[in-house]
């Protein structure tokens, strides 16, 4: 769009548009716009709404602009032109708004869009906008509102912006805030560093006005040092730590030193890479301002990086200057504060010295005052009895008068010297002589202290001018000092002439002075704290006074000292008078007495132990005790602790006369020892004492439970409530301030003793009780630490109360490494102590000297009434002897039990080893028995262990022990062994204890005892074994035949264990004619006696049957035989003779229960014929006989009454039951049937009488063995046919069985024995009631049948299977067995 002034005028005139009339100037420029070229068209065609809006715009005094139409054509008024548009006027008029405000369109565009689309006004306050109105990008702030403008139809077509520029306000407030914050340091007291740090923090909050700042302070040499940085990273080249004084650095130091501000352009090298602060771009300029000091060179300067988006106008400059001013003021105030602080500290130091002085002087004055006032008070009450004691007290007053005088004099000397009022009188003296004389005064005291005193004062070449009084003080003070701090060695005094000076030295071999203390040695009132000394007396003015006095003489005094070795004071006094004021010179005077020496010596003597003063007073007499509280037969024992001997004596005398027993000690440590050794009823202690002071003493007493309750009264020279509170806080019971009245002390002591006695009565009674216990007594705290024990505890365990408390793990616990089991036991018991309310246990413990003890402890939990904490109180007894005795007894009992229970020697040995293993908790126990010419046999708790499994080393050792002496234990690192006698040879028992388990003397003793017992037990077991074997052999011999004929089964159960025989018997006797004698008998009684009778009868019966096979004849002969044998009478016997081929049975019964015959058809018949009386009842009388035929597959049962006889049941019931039992087992093999019958008839708790049972099934099974040859087939078949006939089977059945058996035999012969011809084939046939079983066994292996090759053999097996009901062919390594069954019922 082109613009033309002429055109504009023309348009205004021609258009006549009064739309721009509201503002002449802007209106004219608006009118000059070529509107026709804009989207709005000529003003004449503008809608009324636009005209109205423009009119309002132009007439408003508020800064406004508006945009209208599709291009948002720009309008503004005069105010906006002035405040905001700046250089863009009038170019902007009629242009699209986006073009006019291109640079901020990103900010305002969206807002305008919002207004146009929603029709709602926006509001922005203080929005930061970068404007380009002043020739640079300028930071500005506007508050504005965009309102919608609507056309005539009401549609939003434009917007009106009302703008208030707030740049000045925002920036002003920002700067004000920084200045305000700078002055708002909350802390009152600040160091320079704190000031700068705080300022930096504030400056860094305003990175808009101050993108970066540097604070430099000038050093004494004029160079500048960096003291504060904001906005700049450390180490930036623009911020070097130091700037040289010549101004060659980054910043113009020189100009600033003169106090001028400098504007620096930030171009080039050091300024590249500066940070931008809060702005997009870094500063281009920095202002450097001096930190001005009133009336002096600047402290330093402030470098401020400038906001490139603001001009450096007056306001900005003013802000920077104010900031620098703030900093300067802060530094000034900090520096002045520091100066004040130093002054205050100096004053405080002075104050401290004074305070020290006064507190010392207070002590020194008050103590002597007490000592004066006390006796004086006593004197007042009993002046009448003026005796030796009164004189003694007067002596005290005298001595302390001297001392006080001396002290006061010294102080006076000081004040005189300080005031220059010292009246000196210098006279020429023989200094060697004078010094030696003064020194000799101290000799007695030095001697008494046990020190060597060397005075070496040869005459000097000329006289020395001294004031005698002053010199005396110099020498005596030095000697007094030396004596005070020297405990052994020597003190020496020398006088020499050197370089026109008299040189006097006083040396000692005392504690010396530490290097740090040396400079202050002669300082007034300075005392070396905590130095070991003979007395705490002293005010610290002695050496200071000496120095002053030597100075008055124109001399010097120096000291050199090595800590722990000694100190040497060297005084140099010039010869002549030139150094002295002439008016103070005087002629020599002779015979001047040493006036003050006595005081020094007297004082020094008081520091030393005085044999003449008994430290422990003898008990008072009854008369003297009158002042004591009545009711106590034992005087209270008091302990007085004071380093001042006079005070000690005074207190002792005072308290002694009041009826107390008094012990005295010189300091806190002695007091502590005395109390621990024997607790007194009350301790009276001075607060200030060398070594351990009174407060320390109280603290030490209170921390030890044994002394915690001892009451303490503290005496102190320090007055004031604080001091007494300190004392009471430390745990003192009472506190007295010197000077105190004697009556007051006595009253306090009496009250405290009474109170303590009341309080301690229980405790003492308890202590007495506890100590009188013979059992050890202990108290544990919550954590298990033992905090109290009694004397018996120490006696038993060796641990004394001195080392209490004993923390767990207590030192008497067995060592966990070497004796883990014992350790574990104690651990368990200990946890019981901690957790259970009460209990008791027996545990192993270790005495202090290392030996093992066993103690039985009982404990109860209780509550400490003082603290409320849980404690455990317990006692224990030494049960070591009992323990081992019980251990031995129970071990012996256990072993004895094992040995007794064992029924054989191996069992006895195994049991014993198991017992030993459990007793010693061994890994393994073994016994090796030496056997000649063979390796030893081993029995061990590990069942599988054999001799060859043992390590060679162990085998060698065991072998060596075979020949060792018996019952002597040996032990080595792995266990213990012992040699004992075994019935079969020497035996070594070896207990493998594993690693490093102690095998104590007690263990050895026990092992010996047990080994002896074991040897006896084994011998006994061996003997029993032999007897039993003998007995068994005999019993078996009398019982009956060990081999029975086929078809028979027997059972025998003796009533008396462990006998295997009784009064009953059975017998089968193969007779010469092929028949079989059968006998079952029952002698009266049971046990061994009956058995012996039975044996005879059985043998006799057997012999008789062999001679004459008639049962009746046999029994009749037996009648006579039995009549001659005691106990044989009334024996019942069933005697029969059986033909096994026919089943024909002839029998006779001598009072015996009837035999039972079970037929295959299920009926039962009793063999009740041929009955007569028992044996020997009617000897000579004929006996009848009965006969019967045992049918095929019938079963015969003979028995004694033990099988069927039961209490409260008729015998017939038992017989019926037996018959049923046999019938029930018809299908069982006869031996199985015997078992079934015994089981079925057995009473619930077993047979209580002897039982004999004999079964026979007819016919007896057929058993044959024949060579594997085909020629055997016919005889085998014949025998089988004959047996099958006995079984009374139908002919077809017989034929089938014969063919099946023949096939099996043929197979066995043909195939089973092709390799081993001639080996026997076995055939067995057994008939039961309904079933026949046939077995053919060979020792060969059959081939799998191959019918095509061997058709007739395959046909053989097929035949067997077809003819028999069940065929099982089992082929194995041992041979082939054909098992066949068929029903035969």
């Amino acid at each position, binding site marked *: 769009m082109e613009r033309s002034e002429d055109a504009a005028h023309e348009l205004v005139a021609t258009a006549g548009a009064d739309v721009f009339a509201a503002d002449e100037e802007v209106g004219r420029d608006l009118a000059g716009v070529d509107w026709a070229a804009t989207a709005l068209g000529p003003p004449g065609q503008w809608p009324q709404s636009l005209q109205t809006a423009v009119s309002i715009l132009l007439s408003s005094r508020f800064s406004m602009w508006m945009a209208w139409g599709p291009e948002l054509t720009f309008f503004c008024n005069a105010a906006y032109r002035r405040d905001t548009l700046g250089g863009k006027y009038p170019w902007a008029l009629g242009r699209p708004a986006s073009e006019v405000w291109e640079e901020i369109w990103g900010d305002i565009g969206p807002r305008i869009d919002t207004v146009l689309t929603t029709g709602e006004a926006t509001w922005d306050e203080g929005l930061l906008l970068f404007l380009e109105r002043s020739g640079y990008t300028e930071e500005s702030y506007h508050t504005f509102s965009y309102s919608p403008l609507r056309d005539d139809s009401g549609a939003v077509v434009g917007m009106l912006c009302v703008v208030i520029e707030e740049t000045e306000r925002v920036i002003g407030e920002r700067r004000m805030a920084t200045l305000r914050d700078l002055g708002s340091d909350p802390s009152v007291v600040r160091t320079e560093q704190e000031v700068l740090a705080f300022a930096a923090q504030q400056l860094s909050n305003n990175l808009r006005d101050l993108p970066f700042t540097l604070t430099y302070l000038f050093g004494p040499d004029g160079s500048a040092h960096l003291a504060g940085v904001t906005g700049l990273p450390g180490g930036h080249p623009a911020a070097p730590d130091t700037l040289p004084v010549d101004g060659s650095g980054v910043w113009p130091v020189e100009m600033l030193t003169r106090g001028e501000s400098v504007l620096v352009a930030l171009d080039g090298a050091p300024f590249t890479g500066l940070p931008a602060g809060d702005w997009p771009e870094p500063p281009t300029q920095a202002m450097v301002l001096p930190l001005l000091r009133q009336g002096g060179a600047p402290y330093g300067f402030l470098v401020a990086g400038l906001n490139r988006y603001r001009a450096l106008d007056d306001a900005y400059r003013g802000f920077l200057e104010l900031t620098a001013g703030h900093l300067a003021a802060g530094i000034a105030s900090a520096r002045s504060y520091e100066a004040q602080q130093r002054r205050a500290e100096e004053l405080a130091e002075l104050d401290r010295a004074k305070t020290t002085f006064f507190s010392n002087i207070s002590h020194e004055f008050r103590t002597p005052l007490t000592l004066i006032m006390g006796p004086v008070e006593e004197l007042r009450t009993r002046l009448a009895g003026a005796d030796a004691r009164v004189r003694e007290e007067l002596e005290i007053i005298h001595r302390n008068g001297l001392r006080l005088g001396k002290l006061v004099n010294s102080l006076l000397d000081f004040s005189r010297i300080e005031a220059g009022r010292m009246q000196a009188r210098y006279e020429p003296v023989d200094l060697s002589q004078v010094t030696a004389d003064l020194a000799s005064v101290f000799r007695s005291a030095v001697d008494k202290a046990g020190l060597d005193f060397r005075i070496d004062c040869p005459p000097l070449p000329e006289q020395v001018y001294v004031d005698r009084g002053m010199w005396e003080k110099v020498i005596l003070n030095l000697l007094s000092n030396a004596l005070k701090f020297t405990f052994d060695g020597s003190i020496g005094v020398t006088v020499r002439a050197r370089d026109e000076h008299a040189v006097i030295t006083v040396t000692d071999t005392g504690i010396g002075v530490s290097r740090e203390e040396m400079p202050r040695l002669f300082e007034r009132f300075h005392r070396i704290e905590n130095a070991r000394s003979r007395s705490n007396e002293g005010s610290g003015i002695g050496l200071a006074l000496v120095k002053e006095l030597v100075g008055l003489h124109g001399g010097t005094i120096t000291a050199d000292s090595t800590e722990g070795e000694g100190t040497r004071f060297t005084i140099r006094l010039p010869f002549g008078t030139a150094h002295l004021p002439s008016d103070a010179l005087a002629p020599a005077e002779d015979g001047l007495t040493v006036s003050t020496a006595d005081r020094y010596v007297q004082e020094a003597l008081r520091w030393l132990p005085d044999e003449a003063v008994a430290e422990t007073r003898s008990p008072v007499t009854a008369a003297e005790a009158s002042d004591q509280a009545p009711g106590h037969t034992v005087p209270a024992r008091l302990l007085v602790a004071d380093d001042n001997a006079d005070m000690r004596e005074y207190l002792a005398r005072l308290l002694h006369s009041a009826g107390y027993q008094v012990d005295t000690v010189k300091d806190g440590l002695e007091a502590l020892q005395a109390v621990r050794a024997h607790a007194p009823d009350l301790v009276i202690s001075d607060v200030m004492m060398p070594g351990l002071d009174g407060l320390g003493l109280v603290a030490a007493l209170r921390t030890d439970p044994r002394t915690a309750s001892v009451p303490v009264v503290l005496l102190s020279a320090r007055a004031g409530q604080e001091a007494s509170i300190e004392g009471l806080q430390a745990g003192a019971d009472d506190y007295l301030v010197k000077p105190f009245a004697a009556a007051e002390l006595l009253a306090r002591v009496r009250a405290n003793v009474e109170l303590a006695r009341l309080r301690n009565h229980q405790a003492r009674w308890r202590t007495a009780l506890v100590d009188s216990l013979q059992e050890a007594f202990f108290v544990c705290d919550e954590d298990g630490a033992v905090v109290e024990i009694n004397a018996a505890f120490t006696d038993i365990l060796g641990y004394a109360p001195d080392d209490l408390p004993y923390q767990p793990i207590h030192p008497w616990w067995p060592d966990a490494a070497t004796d883990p089991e014992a350790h574990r036991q104690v651990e368990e018991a200990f946890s019981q102590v901690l957790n259970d309310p009460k209990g008791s246990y027996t545990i192993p413990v270790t005495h202090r000297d290392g030996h093992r003890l066993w103690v039985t402890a009982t404990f109860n939990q209780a509550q400490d009434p003082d603290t409320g904490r849980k404690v455990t109180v317990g006692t224990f007894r030494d049960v070591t002897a009992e323990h081992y005795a019980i251990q031995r007894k129970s071990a012996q009992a256990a072993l004895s039990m094992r040995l007794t229970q064992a029924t054989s020697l191996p069992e006895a040995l195994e049991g014993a080893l198991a017992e030993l293993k459990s007793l010693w908790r061994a890994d393994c126990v073994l016994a090796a028995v030496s056997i000649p010419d063979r390796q030893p046999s081993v029995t061990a708790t590990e069942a599988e262990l054999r001799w060859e499994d043992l390590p060679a080393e162990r085998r060698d050792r065991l072998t060596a022990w075979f020949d060792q002496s018996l019952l002597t234990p040996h032990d080595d690192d792995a266990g213990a062994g012992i040699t004992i006698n075994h019935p079969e040879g020497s035996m070594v028992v070896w207990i493998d204890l594993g690693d490093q388990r102690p095998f104590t003397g007690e263990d050895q003793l026990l092992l010996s005892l047990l080994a002896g017992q074991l040897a006896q037990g084994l011998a006994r077991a061996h003997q029993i074994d032999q007897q039993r074997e003998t007995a068994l052999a005999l019993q078996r011999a009398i019982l009956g035949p060990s081999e029975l004929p086929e078809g028979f089964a027997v059972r025998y159960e003796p009533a008396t264990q462990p006998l295997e025989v009784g009064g009953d018997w059975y017998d089968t006797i193969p007779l010469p004619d092929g028949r079989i004698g059968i006998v079952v008998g029952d002698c009266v009684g049971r046990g061994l006696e009956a058995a012996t009778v039975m044996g005879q009868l059985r043998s006799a019966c057997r012999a008789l049957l062999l001679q004459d096979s008639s049962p009746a004849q046999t029994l009749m002969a037996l009648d006579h035989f039995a009549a001659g044998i005691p106990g044989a009478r009334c024996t019942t016997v069933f005697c029969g003779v059986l033909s096994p081929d026919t089943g024909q049975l002839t029998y006779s019964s001598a009072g015996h229960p009837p035999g039972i015959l079970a037929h295959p058809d299920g009926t039962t018949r009793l063999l009740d014929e041929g009955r007569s009386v028992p044996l020997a009842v009617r000897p000579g009388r004929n006996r009848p006989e009965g006969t019967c035929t045992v049918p095929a597959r019938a079963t015969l049962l003979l028995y004694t009454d033990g099988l069927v006889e039961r209490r409260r049941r008729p015998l017939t019931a038992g017989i019926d039951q037996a018959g049923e039992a046999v019938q029930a087992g018809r299908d069982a093999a006869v031996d199985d049937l015997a078992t079934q019958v015994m089981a079925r008839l057995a009473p619930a708790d077993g047979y209580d009488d002897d039982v004999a049972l004999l079964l026979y099934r007819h016919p007896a099974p057929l058993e044959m063995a024949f060579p594997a040859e085909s020629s055997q087939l016919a005889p085998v078949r014949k025998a089988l046919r004959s047996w099958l006939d006995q079984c009374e089977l139908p002919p077809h059945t017989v034929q089938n069985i*014969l*063919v099946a058996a*023949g096939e099996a035999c043929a197979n066995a012969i043909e195939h089973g024995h092709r390799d081993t011809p001639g080996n026997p084939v076995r055939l067995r046939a057994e008939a039961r009631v309904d079933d026949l079983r046939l077995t053919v066994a060979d020792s060969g292996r059959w081939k799998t049948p191959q019918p095509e090759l061997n058709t007739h053999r395959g046909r053989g097996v097929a035949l067997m299977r*077809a003819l028999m009901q069940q065929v099982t062919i089992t082929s194995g390594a041992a041979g082939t067995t054909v098992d066949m069954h068929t029903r035969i019922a």
Partner: protein
Amino acid sequence: MTTLLTLTPSRRPDGVAQLTVVGEIDMSNTDALATAIETTEGPLVLDLTAVEYLDSAGLSVLFRHTDRIEIIATSLLAPVLEISGLADLTTVHGLDTP
């Protein structure tokens, strides 16, 4: 020793050869039986009426000649002859005879 066995050849009235066997037949004497049968030509009637025992060894001899023999036996041998299947291959007479 072989099992007792008597073998008696004869000729029946109709001219057919006949072998009368008496005793027991087992593997010890089947060779004799076999020889006796083989030495006879043509059809043969075996009279086993007096045989008390016949096992698979004997049967296997008989099986070799089923095409030309007829058998006369009693019920005693019936199970063996029937089970083996011989009775199905050749004519057996007299099995009902006790």
